[in-house]
């Protein structure tokens, strides 16, 4: 039995609820499994975590079990004075004592708040994952999943600090945990900056209140509903999910935070700059740093900065939100209009230098107006939103500001707008922004546009080009079924005259467009260099030489700025395809980053 002679015989006993219990017989199969599990976990957890094979854990006064593998925070020296008390993960490799591990041990671990408990079931060659411990009289785990070969699981990895940091009102311990898992789930499937809020409203009973930003197209909401359904089924909780359009939702979130009656999770497109910094500072949001730590490897570091804000009470920075989307600025333009006046409509041939780029659209306006004054008398080259009531203005302005090499707030959150370099950049940007308008190349109504009005202007074919941070312009093609058919008709007749130019990373393509056989050409706009998978390359001085190129990358680096909010970051069913697309293009982009011209990229085919 102890044929390797590594362990002393007394290792085979452990203290469970005051009883000495004989452990699993230590055969080669068993021990190999333990070593494999330990190795895998070491790789998964990385530095800062201690993976202890068969180390004792001091759970309570009456129990000091020796789980086959346990994971705790810190380094070996941290536990010189005493055994660890609260492992973040416990794994038992089980062959002959399966029933015992499933029942007594599970109860024990659950009662002591071990949040992640796995049983490697060697007999059936499956992994059993127990989560959501409930204490109290009938201690046990609320969630049990059985994974077979090929499936994967991510450890919850809750840090000890996280437990202390969740002040729930009327909430009970299970709630924040579910909320965290919910946040994680939404990220995992890749839906959309979440805000976790500590004061739980209807927390009695297992009900999570979730406020979600209404998507631009129904598929977005349907995907979210699916995620929620699955989460409800697997975690046995009830979720009250509601969708509200962004501006109204912001109003609701603000009112809720002021009144301190909040949902458990709220996701709004405006969270990153209108909610998280302000209410994070006010100590009104839940610290979700543990969650972010656990998910860090899957993030582009730049995306995380939007949620890393200062708490005015603790005087410390922490993560007060879970970024799950980023948005890029798309350029939409009518190809047929450009062709009509003999200008190149191929994105590869549109000049990419800053001034040349903008002059191109001015030129288009002049030429079109000259060619057909009756038809194009009120046509404008650039659909730039310049009103205080639209968020598009904010994105456009800040992208321009970054392109002019300026910033208003530095990495540490200090206001640096008055530094000479930034002052100059701000003046330049304002001048550029204002001159676009006053020179007559932007529709006069642009100072009164709401977020939807540049879309309306574009659909009306009274502007040649417009930047838009969402895919709503092409998506509008199938809002009304019949209208969509007409719209497609028009598009086909004009050979895909609706043109998108992507700057920066990719948004998921809208499946409906492909199914209808619509040609969808993705190309790069005036953009910054990026490595594969959207990872920014290290900064190089020559990156700064071209304002147009610089904008996206600078945006990504800005963190505090809201330009990139709707890029999907996650993985999972739907998102994998996008990732592949993005990955492929990312490589191309990386290859050609310094060429500085546009390359047309391949159409992403949907299944």
């Amino acid at each position, binding site marked *: 039995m102890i044929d390797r002679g590594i362990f002393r015989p007394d290792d085979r006993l452990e203290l469970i609820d005051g009883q000495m219990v004989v452990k699993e017989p230590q055969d080669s199969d068993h021990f190999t499994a333990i070593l494999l599990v330990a190795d895998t976990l070491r790789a998964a957890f990385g530095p800062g975590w201690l993976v202890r094979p068969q180390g004792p854990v001091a759970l309570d006064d009456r129990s000091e079990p020796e789980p086959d593998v346990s994971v705790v925070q810190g380094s070996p020296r941290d536990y010189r004075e005493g055994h660890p008390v609260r492992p973040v993960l416990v794994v038992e490799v089980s062959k002959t004592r399966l029933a015992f591990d499933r029942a007594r041990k599970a109860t024990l671990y659950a009662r002591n708040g071990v949040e992640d408990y796995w049983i490697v079931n060697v007999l059936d060659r499956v992994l059993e994952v127990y989560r959501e411990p409930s204490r109290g009289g009938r201690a046990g785990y609320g969630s049990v999943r059985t994974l077979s070969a090929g499936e994967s699981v991510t450890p919850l990895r809750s840090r000890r600090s996280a437990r202390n940091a969740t002040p729930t009102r009327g909430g009970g311990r299970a709630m924040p945990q579910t909320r965290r898992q919910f946040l994680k789930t939404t990220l995992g499937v890749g839906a959309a900056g979440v805000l976790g809020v500590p004061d739980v409203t209807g927390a009695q009973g297992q009900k999570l209140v979730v406020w979600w930003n209404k998507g631009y197209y129904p598929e977005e909401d349907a995907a979210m509903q699916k995620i929620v359904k699955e989460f409800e089924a697997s975690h046995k909780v009830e979720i009250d999910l509601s969708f509200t359009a962004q501006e109204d939702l*912001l*109003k609701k979130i*603000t*009112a809720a935070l*002021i009144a301190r009656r909040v949902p458990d999770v709220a996701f709004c497109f405006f969270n990153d700059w*209108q*909610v998280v910094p*302000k*209410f994070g500072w006010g100590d009104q949001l839940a610290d979700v740093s543990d969650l972010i730590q656990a998910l860090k490897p899957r993030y582009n570091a730049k995306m995380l900065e939007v949620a890393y804000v200062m708490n005015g009470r603790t005087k410390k920075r922490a993560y007060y939100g879970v970024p799950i989307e980023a948005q890029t600025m798309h350029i939409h333009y009518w190809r047929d209009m450009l062709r009509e006046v003999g200008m190149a409509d191929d994105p590869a041939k549109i000049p990419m230098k800053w001034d040349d780029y903008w002059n191109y659209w001015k030129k288009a306006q002049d030429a079109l107006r000259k060619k057909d004054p009756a038809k194009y008398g*009120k046509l*404008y080259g650039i659909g730039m939103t310049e*009103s*205080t*009531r639209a968020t598009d203005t904010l994105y456009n302005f800040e992208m321009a500001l970054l392109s002019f090499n300026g910033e208003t707030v530095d990495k540490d959150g200090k206001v640096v707008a008055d530094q000479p370099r930034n002052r100059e950049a701000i003046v330049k940007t304002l001048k550029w922004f204002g001159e676009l308008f006053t020179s007559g190349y932007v*529709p*006069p*109504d*642009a*100072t*009164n*546009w*709401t977020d939807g009005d540049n879309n309306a*202007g574009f659909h*009306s074919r*009274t502007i040649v080009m417009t930047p838009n941070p969402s895919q709503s312009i092409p998506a509008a093609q199938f809002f009304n079924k019949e209208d969509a058919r007409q719209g497609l008709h028009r598009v086909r007749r004009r050979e895909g005259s609706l043109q998108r130019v992507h700057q920066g990373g990719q948004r998921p393509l809208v499946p409906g467009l492909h199914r209808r056989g619509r040609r969808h050409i993705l190309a790069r706009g005036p953009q910054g260099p990026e490595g594969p998978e959207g990872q920014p390359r290290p900064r190089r001085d020559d990156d700064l030489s071209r304002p147009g190129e610089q904008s996206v990358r600078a945006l990504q680096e800005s963190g505090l700025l809201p330009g990139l909010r709707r890029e999907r970051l996650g993985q999972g069913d739907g998102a994998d395809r996008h990732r592949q697309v993005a990955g492929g293009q990312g490589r191309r982009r990386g290859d050609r980053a310094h060429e500085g011209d546009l390359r047309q990229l391949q159409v992403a085919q949907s299944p």
Partner: protein
Amino acid sequence: MSPTTREGGRRAPSRVALVLRSRTTQGFLFTAPLLVLFAAFVIYPMAFGVWYALDADSYRALFSDPTFRQTVVNTLWYVGFAVNVKLFLALLLSGILDFQFAWIRVLAALFLIPWAVPALPGILSFRWMLNSQWGIFNYLLGKFGFASVPWLAQHDTALGAVIVFHIWKYLPFWTIIFLAGRRAIPNELYEATAIDGASALQNFRYVTFPLLRNLYLICTLLSMVFTLGDFTVPWLMTGGAPGDSTHVLATLAYRYTFQMGRLEWGLATFAVALPVTLGFIGLLLRWVKI
């Protein structure tokens, strides 16, 4: 307290019955639902709001904000100009609707449509008509050879649009009020002046207006108070655009509260208007019986 209870040699009513029959108790009982509503839903939020609005820093911030100063000017225009033009027009129109022709009654019925149609659809319609590129107004201007006007994109015309919509929407209501006021004037007075050979203008000058003056003043005050708190029309029409230049107090408070997350500024903005409102209430209380 009523005489019947005292008669008939019955036993004197118990203390409880007496209290129940006192006017004060009965008055309170009948107004109880109202008082409960006010206590629960007006006094409490008012107290909360005032408590929040007491911070002097908020006012310092407000008065140093150029947007706030512009907003005060806009509000004065909106409340002062729009209301008075509206009520003056209403007074004139009520004279027209007072004629006893059959078709005038049809006209009066149609004339009330803007008041019956909710504000939101009306504003949407106005905004589409005022679009500088595909709006019907600029289209018609173009037909007659005029240059197009960016109605909602410059301060004066945008604020003008808010004022015009306000007049469009609420003119019918006040016209009807004045119409009722005119109809309440005894006909004998006009018969008397007719004998003196008074012209229509003289009729108005010496009979109609003096009798309507009080009503006109009260309506002006009421309408001003309502307009001062109007959020819907300016917000949906311009939203403060262009460049936050067309806010009124209500929309600015909204902007401070919800877009900047500054509740204390938002409540302070309302508090600035409070003395004016309270003054109006004082005047109204003196003139109006409830």
